[in-house]
Structures are given as C-alpha cells and as structure tokens.
C-alpha cells in the first residue's frame, strides 16, 4: 500500500500516550501525532507497511496472509503479528 504521509505514530521511536500525542524516545519530549516526522524516523510495523495488506477503501483493507483474507485496517500496529512482512 502506498503511504503518502507519515505521522509520528508511524515511527518506532514514538511512545504513544493518547490519541493526540506521545513521547519521542529520541528527544524525550511530548509531540503531537499529526506533525511531521524527522530524520530519526524508523518505520513501525503496521498493516499499511505490510506486503500482505491490500487496501479496499479509505482506512480499510484485507489481510492476504491468511487464506480467509480477513478484513484489516491500515493503522493497525503489527509489532506482535508473526505474519508481518514489510513491503
């Protein structure tokens, strides 16, 4: 899936606090999710970064890692998913 804009909550250095903000582990400060990422960005495993994810519409898709191809959503964090395969 093509990802146009990266947010801070797409980064492994981002420690989520709530729906608006988190802590940057590099800078050790609170940052808003929806602001631009920096050069320290490290991709966080998410469905939208997985080769098995196919978008079917806005914020919706399917997971082709399983035969049943269950629906999935792009923002799902996949650090615990054994099927995650970076695109």
């Amino acid at each position, binding site marked *: 899936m093509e990802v146009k804009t990266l947010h801070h909550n797409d980064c492994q250095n981002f420690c*989520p606090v709530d*729906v608006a903000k988190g802590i940057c*582990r590099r800078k050790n400060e609170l940052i808003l*999710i929806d602001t631009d990422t920096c050069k320290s960005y490290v991709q966080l495993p998410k469905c939208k970064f997985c080769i098995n994810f196919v978008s079917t519409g806005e914020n919706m898709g399917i997971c082709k890692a399983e035969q049943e191809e269950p629906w999935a959503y792009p923002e799902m964090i996949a650090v615990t998913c054994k099927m995650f395969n970076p695109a």
Partner: protein
Amino acid sequence: MATPVVDNRQKLLAEILMEKGIPIEYRYGKEHEGVTDREIKNDPTPRANQLKNLYLNSLSSVNVEFPYWYTREWRKWDGEIPIIRRAKSLKAAFSHSTPVIWPGEKLVMGKTYYYRGSFPMPWLSNTFFMAKSDDLYKAALARGGASAGEETKFGAGGGNVTQDFGNVVSIAGKFGIRSEEVPAMIKLAYEWKDKSVEELGHKYEMMVPEYSRKESIMRSIICMFDSGYTLPQGREVINYYYPLQYGFDGLIELCKERKDKVAGRADGDGLVGMDRLYFYDAVITVIEGLQNWILNYAKEAHRLESITDNPVQSKEYGEIAEMLEWIAHYQPRTFKEALQMTCLLHFAVLNEDSISGMSPGRVGQILFPWYEQDIEAGRITKEEVCELLQLHRVKFTCIDCFACSGVVGGVLSSNTFNNLSMGGLNKNGDPEGNELEMLILESSKRLQSTQPTLSCLYDEKLPEDFLLKCAEVVKCGTGYPAFMNNQSAIQFLMRQYGVEGMDLSDARAIAIGGCLETSPCTWMPLTLNGKQYWIPGGAGQPTSVGVHFIANPKVLECVLFNGKDYRTGEQIYPPHNRKLETFEELWQTFCEYYEMTVDCLATTNNIQHDIWRKNSMSVINSFLKPDCLDKGLHIGQLGYRYNATFNVESCGTITMVNSLAALKKLVYDDKKYSLEEMKDALLHNFGFKTAKEVGSFSLLSQVKREDGAKYDKIHHDCLMAPKYGNDDPYADSILRKYEDWFCPMTNKYESLYGRKMYPCQISVSTHGVQGSITLATPDGRLEGTTYSDASMSAYPGTDRNGPFALFNSATVWDHSMSQNSQLNLKIHPSAVKGPEGTRKLLDLTRAYMRKGAFHIQYNVVDSKVLKDAQAHPENYRELLVRVAGFTQYWVELGKPIQDEVIARTEYEEI
C-alpha cells in the same frame, strides 16, 4: 463595563431558601473566614510524580486492536464449544496487544497501548455504535481533513475528550478515537449484530411476560441500567492467589493433570460434569495468551534496553525484561515481582470484560509474605516499597472503563472503583493493619490520586496507630480511606452466604468490591520459601449485577400520580385508582409498585446474564477465584464458592424518606393540605421554572417563576416539614419502616443462579441523573435537581443538629441487613487541623461505628475552594473530591454532581 440588572422577581432557589432560614449551603458551626487549604499535600517521588503528571496530561483514549483480534479469531472457530471459542479469541487478542513501556516505569503493562486506554467490546454491547455509525463516519471524514494544528484543550473535563478535534473523534463526550480507526470500530460493531450479549439478551428478555413494564421503567429511568451487557462483572474482589502460588507454568500443569482426570467422566454430575474438560482446556489456552502478552512486554523492554542511551534507564529496562520473563512462568520471588504480577492480573481481568469496580482486595496482606522476606533479607528498603506503591497508584489511576455513555457518565462519573481494603481481622480473628498497610497509607498520602481508593475495615481490635494513620490520610481531602464496619459486614456475609457454607473464618476475609460493596472472600494457603501464610482474596461473583439503581422518589411520584410518569406522559404501572386516603394506603401502594419494579427487572436481567454466561463467560476471572479450578467449572456454572451476589440497588433514599415525612405530616396527620393540593404543587414545581427551562439540573440554579407565588406557602411548609438527620423520630421512624420492609423484600427475588437477592444502598452518581427525571418532591426539592446523595447522607442543608444527631438518625435500623449503607460528611479542614484534629476525626468515626453503622467517609475541603474550582477549572486539574463511594478529579465531574458536593452541609466544627 455595565453592571447587569438583577431581576428581583426571578429568584434562585438558593436565595429563597436563605430567606427562609434554611440555606442550601448550610454550615454547622461558626464559619471560617478566608479560604482554608488542606493540611496534607502531595509529596510523591520524582519518578512517581513524572508518571502521575503524564496521566494528568493524558486523554481518555480508545483503540480497536484488542476487539479486532478477538473478533478475527472468533470468526475462525464457528461451531466450536463456546468457552473454547472464547478462550481462543482472548488468547489471540492478548497475544497481539502492542506492548508499550513509558519512560520511568518500574511497574509495567496496561489495558492498551495508550496510557489511559480502553476499548469497546462489541461482543457485549454494540448497538450504540450501529446507531451512531452515520454520525461517527461523518465525524471521522470531517476530522480526516482537519488541520494538524488543532490542539488538545485541557481544563474543564480533565482527560475527557468532550468534542472532536484534529484527527480525533469524540465518543459520547468521554473517549477519543483516531479518525482512521472509526471505520474499523463500526465494522466490528456490525460484525456482532444479532450476536452480542446485548442483542441476544434483548431478543429473549422480550419473552418475559412483564417485559413491556420493564421497557417503560427503563424509558422513565426509574431504573438506571441493565447490568447484563453493560458491566457484567465488577464491584467484586479479585483473587491473585493461584498465579502467586503456582506461577503460570504451574497452573498449566495443574490444568493438564485435571484434564486427564475428568476427560469423558461425568463423576455423578450429568449436567455439567463433562464440561470440566472444556473449562480446563480453555484455562490453558488463556494462560498461554497471557504468557505471550507478558513476554511481548519483555521483548519490548529488551528493545528499549538496546536503544536507550541513558545507562541507568537502559539497565532498568533490562531489569523489567528479566522480571517479566520470570513471572511469565513462575511464582514471583520478590515484592516487586509480586506487585507486578498483581498489576498484570488486574489488567488481564479488566480486558476480559467490561468491568467497573474490580477491587484488588487486601493488597497489604496478600503481598506481606514477599514484603516481610525482602525486608528481612535486605533486598528492599521501606522507601523503595513506598515508591513502588506510588507507582502502583499511578498504574491503577490510568485504568479506564469503556462502557455505554449513560453508565460511564451517569453512574460512574468516569471512575473505575478499584477499592483496596485494609485492616479487618485475619483468619484467626487477630487484628490486621500491618506494616505494609501502613506503607500503603503513606504512599496514598504522598501520591494522591483516584485509584486505588482505600477502605479501612474498621474493627475495635485494630491498632490505634493504624487507625490514626487512616484518619491522617483522610485529611489529604482525597476522601480515602473510607471506614467500613468490619463486624457489621461479617454479620451480613454470614446471613447472605451461610447457605453456601460461609463460616466465620471466611467471613473474616471480607473485602470491599467497588465503592463499598461487602464482598465474599476466603483465605488461601501461600507458601514462600518454605514458610506458609494465609492470604485473603475474592471468592464470589460480581456484585455489579442484579437490579441496579431504582429511583425511590420516582416510584413515590408514580404512586401519587396513579402510575403515570408526567415527564414522559407514559403510564408506567397499572393505575391503582386508589384515593390514598391514609398514609398506610399510600405506603402499601408504594411497596406494591416497588415490588413490580424489582420483579420485572430481576427476570429480564436474569436473561441478559444467562446469555452472558452461555456465550461470553469469564475464563480469566474464573480461573483466578476459588473454587473454579477445583470444581472444573466457570463462574456461570457456579464455579465460585459464593454465588448469591445479585442485589437490588436503590437511589434517593433520604429524598424519599423526607417526602414521605412531609406527606404524613402535612396531608395525613395535620391535614393542612389535601393530597390533590400537594400533587398540584408538585406538578407546578412549587411555582419554579422547570429545570429544562432553566437549562440546568443543578439545585443551585433553579429559578422562581414570575407568577409562582401561588405555591409559596405550601413550598415553605414542605421545606419546613420534619427531615431526616436531626434525631427526630417523626422522620427517622419512616426510615426505619422503609428499611424493615426494603431489606427483607429484596430476598424474595432470585438471581439466575437460584440464589436470593439482597439490598445494596449506595448511589454512586445516579442521584444526579435520576434526580433530573423526577418532578418536584413533597420534601420541597425541585424538579430535575439531584436527590440526596448516598443512602444515609442528609439532604443538603437539612441536618442542622450536628453530626451526632445525624448519626442517631442513620442508625435507627440494623445496617447488617444490607450489603452496605453510605454516609458522606463534608468537613472544613480547620475542624480537623493538627494531631488533635486527627484524633477528633477518629473519635467521630468510632462514635458512628459503635452505633452499628456500616460506612462513613469524609470530604475534608473548604467549600469556597470548590466554588473557585467550578469557576476556574483550569487552575484545579489536580483537585480531588469524594463523591459517593469514590474519589474523582473535580474537573471530570458533571455540574449537577459538582453542585451537589458544594451544597452538602459543611461541618465547620466536630
């Protein structure tokens, strides 16, 4: 700036009462000048303070990770045995939960990857999201295009997400969800269409003959909520024993052995004997899921250890990883590991179901073995223990509960009621109040927060220094610890659970679940390094279940108006067509309507709970509590030792008592007014505008009509009629009459488990909501305003003879007939200042307990501070107050409840 012109004809209720000499903000004793702050201040360690501040800056946040994986797995196992299917789904959800460790933490793990996170459970309740799907979709689309520059607004509302902002959508004015996740949340809700406990329960409850009455009662809000799908578990005491004793690997081995013994064998039980195999298999599955969950955190700790530059912080991550890798398999070795184990077990249970009031129980006694041995061996210092206990407070304060908005706001005031009990007696009848409990008190004084709230199981045998420490902590103004009468609770437990084998020893294990629910517990033998201890823990079903919050004044209103609710225009009860010519006739009709209410709510809620136990039964909480692992049965199959926990909850007791007293005095004894005249006055709100017209349900804001003078005299007489709380037998005898009827009446109703119900007399926050739907009442209270709080608190401003008169009124009945009673007292900080004040507070408490009362709790606060906080919430983010059975941040309370707390009688001296 021009001075606004005051219209003298539009007087506020507060002004009118002041003119009559019955000010709504009444002070007992001489008023103190100026603003008096609380004596004891926050003093947490820097680490604990940093983590607490993070909480204060966090929003209540929702994601759908857990329900997504639960549902995805559930889909795979169509046709499987329900408990196995549920266990597999839980395992998948726990195994896929994203681990996050926040900087500075020593105790880790949580409900979700948000600091103050929770999530919907559509398998329980889904219709809210389906009903709101259009609105939520629209909001998500709108927010998707919102500017990233929109920032979070703090202040009023605290961590509540009261409105949409940025890429965040507000759910029910409380929770925030990222707009990108809204489509998934709605899709999940639809996936459970016709399958959730809520929808299936509704399908079958409609088969109950009295269902239509139940619906009318719910629409009128005579009853606050269904318990079967909103909060199917909670207000109970968890039990941490089995993992603390055996470790998770030991439990898996135990279950495997049991499986071999029971597979294919009914062992004389043709009904559920065969089910034992599936239960043990399900327990193994969920424990594997919990182990994956813990080890995912350990893996994350190792990752952080490897990328963190700060060597001290890096080392701590390493220690966290090592701790988690051990307790994922084995019995904890140290106090810190044991405390971490209790935390993760707590979160595990809370993620299994929508739960409010999962109380940790007597933590200071449960963890004493590790504390004692660590201290003896020099492995830890008291200061280190005190910091860990502060971190424990932060972890528990972060707990959020996602339930429907009516429950979270109207009942819970966003609180989660994790009540930690202290004191009481041990198995042999000796007093507790041990050294670790003293440290729990100290840490709760240093780090003041909402959770866990504290309860002192008051017993005459308790050491004086422990009780004085409790009184000292009360002076923080946080409202904890509350005092519960240990002996009264023991009597109640023996009476209610004797039929299930409760003996004195088990009764002594009592702890408080939720706000102040006396809960059945037991003792279990724990062995640590060859030394045996008896530790207490929960052994009973939830008490959040049954018939929940009947609005007593509203039932009385329906009696006066021939079964009709004039607010909605709906006929709720069959018309009684009686003239109500005597007080006894009025009383009998009240009892009849009340029993109709309990009956239809009991049967319909029984069906909801039956669906829950069949399709969404507890596996985790089940394996934790005795005697599920021994019996091989889950909670829904009476696996717990004590199952008679369903109750009937009331609200507005004292408003009802005062109303009956006014009717008796003015209509029946003195015959000063006819019943028709009284009803006319009530329907016309004593000449005041309706709360809806005023735009506020707060008692302080009510406004007189310009043409309202017609009802002045009757309103005056109603206000001046005898009131509870003054040691006046006229009013108090009505309370006695009510309790002597109400308590045994509840025993006539039976839960789905075939056990008799019992009375529960707390209000939580329902006195605000249920007051809002009630007409004016004969005690002079106006339409829409809050009821009296709790069950033994006087109506604001009406207890005018001092605390001991109030105590006499409150104890005219036997409190041990009920699961609880509740009395809130607001005391000015000057009244309890210094060591002498601490002693006075204890003496006051002791005086009430010695009269046989069950419960008292204090708000030590200057009302002037509360008023300023209402006007300037941005300056009071950390202000804590005691509401009913819980402590809450002032800014997270609704205005009617804030007004009610301000209005409570303030005791300037005791």
